[in-house]
């Protein structure tokens, strides 16, 4: 049952071969067995999950089951979920039981999916290793001495360890794709504006985007069908006709032009990752695709640009945490200003404070033009590189991350080393393009390697098609960590 696709699970549920209550209980049992070691979940709430499962069973008995009805899905703890503790990985929200649902959560609830638990994450999604979570690090199920990636590391570990049928993540600079790569699963960040940000705790609003994480491209397509959609409560949500993201899965890849950016295969890329990615490109050629060399000359600037824009937006977004209306308040303080300063100093972790300070500095008087405005201009140059590249190819491929999963503590005290692990993913967020990662082999340390697939705007169906055809021809996505 734990290896079944979402489609197989849905068919089994609707054919009454298993009830949603039984399936949910199976996953809850597995979580209680493995979560103490993996720490993939911050919160499980069996009462709520099983109540949803009973409703799903009743709905299916009435013949009203949909694709995801009754299926246990884990939710990143960044999504506000009514009645659930929603911490965003932070002490600041250690007691925040959300009074409302994020739009993404509503979509899953309307579909009759089961919320099987809230997954661990880097604090406020700021991190690439899950080491910044206030609730302890998540362990990579392939080797518990290695990081799962981040920020959606709990989700990636939960999917890899089969603690949920599928799950959600969010991606501001690579937070879906990088942990998907490091944990050997599939994950997709849609075009900016496809999924509503309403109720998704904000990090950098012009970059944040929710997306599905699961075991196959076919599963991701079903999840995205549920997650995507216009929502008037998010001012950047796009008004578009509803798409069926499964529609092109079975198309052959004959004639697909794959662009390979030379900058993604240059210095800094580990040999083992390069080999696995090149082997995957070879497989695509066998499937009928052709390869085009392209260049994204400004992509090397994406890390510095990102570390101006994202902290600037974060420092503004996180100013709401003041110890007044919700969340953590310091127990002792002298006056109002002291209450703000102590509550924020004690409630936020080191990395979050660091980014708030970067953002505050670059937005402060006299520095705006040199940093924020300059970063926004280079952002356009980075986006234009992609526009130019798509004149010569249909889809872009390369590595998701420069190396496989590293050891805890390996990046040391220097935040810049950690920031560089997102070097291939950040440009996609800056341009607002869709990007995904699928497993394509293993590195020297027997940890998974991810292949990144970048699409043009609104080309999710084409990306899912390319990923699905690869997964029909290979079995990397079916490999599961042993010995758990």
């Amino acid at each position: 049952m734990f290896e079944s696709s979402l489609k197989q699970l849905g068919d089994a549920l609707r054919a009454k071969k298993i009830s949603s209550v039984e399936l949910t209980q199976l996953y809850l049992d597995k979580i209680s067995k493995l979560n103490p070691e993996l720490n993939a979940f911050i919160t499980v709430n069996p009462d709520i999950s099983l109540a949803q499962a009973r409703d799903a069973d009743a709905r299916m008995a009435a013949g009203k089951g949909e694709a995801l009805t009754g299926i246990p899905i884990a939710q990143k703890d960044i999504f506000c979920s009514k009645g659930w503790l929603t911490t965003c990985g932070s002490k600041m929200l250690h007691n925040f039981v959300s009074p409302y649902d994020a739009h993404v959560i509503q979509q899953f609830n309307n579909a009759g999916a089961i919320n099987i638990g809230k997954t661990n994450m880097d604090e406020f999604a700021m991190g690439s290793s899950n080491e910044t979570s206030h609730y302890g690090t998540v362990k990579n199920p392939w080797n518990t001495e290695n990081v799962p990636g981040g920020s959606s590391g709990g989700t990636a570990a939960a999917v890899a360890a089969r603690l949920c049928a599928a799950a959600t993540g969010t991606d501001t600079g690579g937070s879906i794709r990088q942990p998907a790569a490091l944990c050997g699963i599939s994950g997709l960040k849609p075009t900016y504006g496809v999924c509503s940000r309403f109720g998704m705790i904000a990090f950098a609003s012009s970059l944040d985007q929710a997306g599905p994480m699961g075991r196959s491209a076919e599963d991701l397509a079903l999840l995205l069908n549920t997650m995507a959609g216009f929502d008037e409560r998010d001012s950047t949500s796009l008004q578009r006709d509803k798409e069926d993201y499964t529609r092109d899965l079975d198309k052959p890849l004959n004639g697909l032009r794959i662009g390979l950016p030379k900058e993604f295969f240059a210095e800094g890329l580990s040999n083992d990752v390069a080999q696995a990615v090149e082997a995957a490109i070879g497989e695509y050629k066998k499937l009928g695709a052709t390869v085009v060399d392209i260049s994204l000359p400004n992509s090397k600037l994406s890390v510095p640009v990102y570390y101006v824009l994202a902290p600037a937006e974060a420092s503004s977004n996180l100013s709401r945490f003041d110890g007044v209306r919700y969340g953590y308040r310091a127990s002792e303080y002298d006056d109002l200003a002291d209450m703000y300063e102590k509550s924020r100093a004690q409630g936020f972790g080191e990395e979050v404070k660091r980014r708030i300070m970067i953002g505050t500095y670059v937005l402060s008087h006299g520095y705006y033009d040199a940093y924020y405005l300059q970063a926004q201009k280079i952002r356009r140059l980075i986006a234009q590189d992609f526009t130019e590249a798509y004149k010569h190819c249909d889809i872009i491929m390369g590595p998701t991350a420069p190396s496989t999963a590293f050891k805890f503590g390996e990046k040391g005290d220097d935040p810049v080393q950690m920031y560089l692990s997102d070097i291939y993913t950040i440009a996609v967020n800056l341009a607002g393009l869709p990007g995904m990662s699928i497993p394509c082999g293993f590195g020297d340390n027997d940890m998974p390697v991810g292949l990144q697939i970048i699409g043009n705007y609104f080309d999710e169906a084409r990306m899912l098609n390319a990923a699905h055809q690869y997964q029909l021809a290979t079995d990397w996505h079916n490999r599961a960590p042993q010995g758990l």
Partner: protein
Amino acid sequence: MSLTTTDVQKVARLARLSMNDQEIESARKQLSGIFDLIEQMQAVDTSGIEPMSHAQDVSQRLREDTVTENNQREAFQVIAPQVENGLYLVPKVIE
């Protein structure tokens, strides 16, 4: 780029983050390293380039000026650190 202790103290105050001397010094070192990375941007000629704030070229939607939210004060105040008679309590600001 090297930040001074005064720079970091000023930023901490603007960001409403209480920090002791040791934390200020640690932040100063790390922020200086990050700004070394950021400084790479200054070499780029961006004259004539429009700043890009959003990926899609869409304009702000407008809505009718009507009340669309229900009053949920009690639900929202259950999770507040300190409330009284439907009001949020903070330390006294005006004597």
